[in-house]
């Protein structure tokens, strides 16, 4: 393994980007906690970065196909881990959710691991299917894989983390070449929210959408096994919403109601409803263009910014480093995401491509939901910011995810060599003796 020219193939750009982002997070965290009781937090975070880096290296040294091969195992481990959260002695109840397990003195969030395991599993399933998307099963299988951990996490309850599985699964399905018509059908059930409005116009609009979808499906000659279930689900969901929306609303928890009401009434700023978002915007806004300087942020230190080391870390960036700092951070994120998607395009295999897409989708959903939340674009859901938020498991998983990216890029180079061999010396790649089938053995 070490004999190969592997070290020259490492994607240093991704690695440095990850390290840069993590260091950015440490600096911001050190600044935000300076002079408070949390002032040692950045050291812990730095330790996690070092551990994460080691994990990252370990990850990219392994061929990503190994992970694809054992994706099922990882996936099952992930699900078991999630279930263990509810187990006595091992599971840990913290901040109102069963999202931690305790092994000795260490605590982990299995949900983080489950994200990666799900990406691998999806890549395996979506990447090894037949060329054409036919029938319901092609859609239902990845959906089920994505929904299973999400449902368990929703039970913990940790809405934010559960939501991430949605965009990741959908974006991966999208990238895997799911037909456009299927995507349309997939979104059909969401039209049920029109049912909240009991106006005759709203009902007509919904009926129009449904009719349009039906006609579209028939004209595009989509098999009825695909469109019928979706439309049936849509109709059932619509009727359910139409009838029971009020009941469901009454059963929501108070803070959830507040968040929804607050999101749709952003002008209610100060008290109660949008307190978090209001203070987050205040922290961002007080930074101005250049920021008020590292370590000088007031809103986080004086306790007005809730959870400033986890979910509301971006406002501390904006407060300390201003618009410049925020946009720089966004630039770094964009660079990383583009790199991941470039990896996805470069990859010779669909699985590699899908893993890279999944990682990009994971990062993208974390970043967009988190920053969208703190700037008031999206409703409040507790979700950390990739590489910047404080948290051990989260940092490890991010690093490993970057490890996947590097691994894919690295081994893509090998794939190119492999392709060459296959094209020029097919006898080497298709040996009669299957026991010595590995090209690396023979080369």
């Amino acid at each position, binding site marked *: 393994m070490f004999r190969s020219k592997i070290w020259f193939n490492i994607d240093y750009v991704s690695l440095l980007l990850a390290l840069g982002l993590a260091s950015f997070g440490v600096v911001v965290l050190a600044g935000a906690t300076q002079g408070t009781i949390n002032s040692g937090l950045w050291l812990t975070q730095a330790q996690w970065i070092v551990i994460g880096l080691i994990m990252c290296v370990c990850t990219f040294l392994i061929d990503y196909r190994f992970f694809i091969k054992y994706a099922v195992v990882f996936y099952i481990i992930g699900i078991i881990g999630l279930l263990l959260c509810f187990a006595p002695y091992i599971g840990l109840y913290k901040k109102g959710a069963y999202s931690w397990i305790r092994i000795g003195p260490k605590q982990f969030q299995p949900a983080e691991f489950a994200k990666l395991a799900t990406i691998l599993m999806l890549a395996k399933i979506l990447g090894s299917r037949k060329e054409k998307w036919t029938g319901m099963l092609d859609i239902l299988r990845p959906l089920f894989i994505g929904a299973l951990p999400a449902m368990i996490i929703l039970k913990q309850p940790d809405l934010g983390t559960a939501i991430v599985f949605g965009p990741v699964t959908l974006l991966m399905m999208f990238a895997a*070449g799911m037909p456009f018509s299927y995507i349309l059908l997939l979104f059909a059930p969401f039209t049920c929210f029109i049912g909240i409005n009991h106006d005759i116009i709203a009902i007509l609009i919904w009926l129009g959408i449904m009719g349009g979808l039906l006609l579209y499906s028939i004209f595009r000659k989509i098999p009825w096994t695909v469109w019928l279930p979706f439309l049936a689900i849509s109709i059932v969901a619509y009727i359910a919403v139409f009838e029971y929306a009020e009941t469901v609303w009454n059963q929501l928890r108070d803070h959830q109601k507040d968040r929804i009401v607050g999101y749709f009434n952003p002008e209610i700023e100060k*008290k109660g409803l949008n307190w978090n978002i209001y203070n987050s915007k205040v922290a961002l806004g007080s930074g*101005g263009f250049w920021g008020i300087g590292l370590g000088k942020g007031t809103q986080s230190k*004086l306790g007005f910014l809730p959870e400033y080391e986890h979910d509301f870390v971006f406002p501390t960036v904006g407060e300390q480093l201003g618009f410049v700092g925020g946009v720089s951070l966004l630039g770094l994120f964009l660079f990383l995401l583009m790199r991941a998607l470039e990896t996805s395009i470069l990859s010779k295999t669909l699985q590699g491509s899908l893993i890279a*897409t999944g990682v990009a989708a994971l990062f993208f959903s974390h970043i967009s939901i988190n920053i969208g939340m703190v*700037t008031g674009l999206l409703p409040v859901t507790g979700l950390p910011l990739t590489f910047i938020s404080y948290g051990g498991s989260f940092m490890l998983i991010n690093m490993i995810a970057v490890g996947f990216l590097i691994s894919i890029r690295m081994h893509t180079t090998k794939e190119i060599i492999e392709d060459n061999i296959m094209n020029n010396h097919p006898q080497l790649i298709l040996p009669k003796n299957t026991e010595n*089938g590995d090209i690396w053995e023979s080369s």
Partner: protein
Amino acid sequence: MKRKHIPLFNKTNKVERRIKFFMLLVVGFFAVLVFRLWTIQIYRQEDYLQSSLDNIQRLVPVQSIRGEIRDSNGKILAKDVNYCDVWIKLNYQNGRRAVTPAVQKSLEMLSEILGKSYKRLEYDYLHKKRDPFYKRLQVCVANRIPPDQYVILEERKMEFPEEAMIFARKVPTRYYHYNSLAAHILGLTGPIDAKEKDSEDYVEYAPYSLIGKSGIEKQYESYLHGSDGVNRIIVDKNEIQRSPSIEVKTAVPGNNVVLNLDYKYQSAAEKILGASAGVMIASTTDNRILAMASNPRFDLNEYRKKYGVYLTDPLNPFYHRAVAGNYEPGSVFKIFEAFALLEELKISPEHQVYCPGHFSKWGTRWNCHKKAGHGYLNLYEAVCLSCNVYFYEMVGDKLNIPGGRRLRKWAIEFGFEDKTGVDLPDERTPSVFPSKDTERFLDFAYTPGVGVNNAIGQGGVLFSPLQVHTAVCAITNNGVLYQPQIAQKILSHGGEVKEIFEPIKMGAVEASPKTFEAVQKAMWEVVNNPRGTGRRLKDYPNFTVAGKTGTAQAGNRGEPHAWFVCYGPFDNPEIVITVMIENGGHGGEVAVPLAQKFLDVFLDNVSFEDLV
């Protein structure tokens, strides 16, 4: 290392297209985020910067130290001392104040330290008004705790939970050194209310600042108050101060007010009056008030605690009898009638009238207080013996018919129709019958009976003791009417004289010197004639007193009011004393001995301590 070969699936162009679309999505969303950041951080930066200051910065008013009130010898009567108010951070649940476990712990500790009942504290926590300066996030649960409790509180501050932190704030509080001494004159302070805040006098006042509510405290508010300062502090989420206070505006202490009142005379007067409801006023002849006692009084320091007791007291301690009281002057009025007689009817003081013990006319009979009658008497004797018949005939019949205008004219001359203009806020307009409003009906409304009644100072003539006192002062200095003056001067906080209040002349009684002489002689007779009603005061060596007693019938309200006005020494008057005892009895028997006691103190015949 053996591995199974994983079959390769060639990617289609579709996948690549999809990923490129994903890239576009990412770029698009990031553009939205950047735009959003621009909106928040640059476009609306000013607003949010202000909001961030609103979050952390508090502009806290610093109450200025209120000026002292001193007596003429510099004794401090009222002064600001530092007490502490205890505030607690409010916890809200569902938009309402809630007693969370943290709050409960705080309140329990407070009740242990302050010795207040927990229920009381909890009630205050839930119901008291919130503070505007701390964004209505705090409420005051204990007012004016003593310094020793404050020390304990500061020591144990760390034990209180942060979510329900307590804050002990020093508040200058008015302290009156002699509790109830001159309570009505000094007056009370209290927080400014909404109506006062809107008025022009209090434009620069911070809400909740302490202002004078009555007495000198209210009258000289502009001098005493000084100007409040402002401090800027940085607080955290739990309203705990996280920075040293920065002075934005310095508090300027108020000026001191020095009164004409003399602690010695004032407390002597109050002691002399004792438990009876009454008034004793002593002043110089130019009406600088040396003592103005009005009993019963209330305790200025503890009046809030005893408020219920005071309210249910039938004698009403809050009633400032000297200034706001309305009493019929009785025979005291006769000395002013004497002016009218001498000036309007142009009679000689020696003009004699026969007193048979009653006065009968118009089919009615009015009695003199001496049933047997006084026989023939002139003006001096009539004043000296306080004969009613003389005045029934001369004033009730001859002067007041028709219409009583001539008596009224002389009442106005002595300032009986208007307020005296004393520097106290709660003076009441006196009523003279016939009054301004009834003047046009006088010819038919002013019946002879009313005139006869007015002749002995009853029947609709109602003056405050200070009014009578002011008029007597005018007699002593041959007609100059001075405004009663309680404050003497204003000193700055450092002690320099800022303003001196000179005696103010309100007018002059236009009567001939002979008339003054005659009336003064009549008043001399009252005291120095062995038969005079005020004869108890005649024995002072080198100090001749002149005066007039009065006994005003109170009808079915009990005993008559006992009056006595006097001044001395006769030749060169220094002091004027007015005594009025509500439902006291006969003036000569009740009021004169009290005046005598006061004169004893004034002339240093009796040491102040012996009075007790």
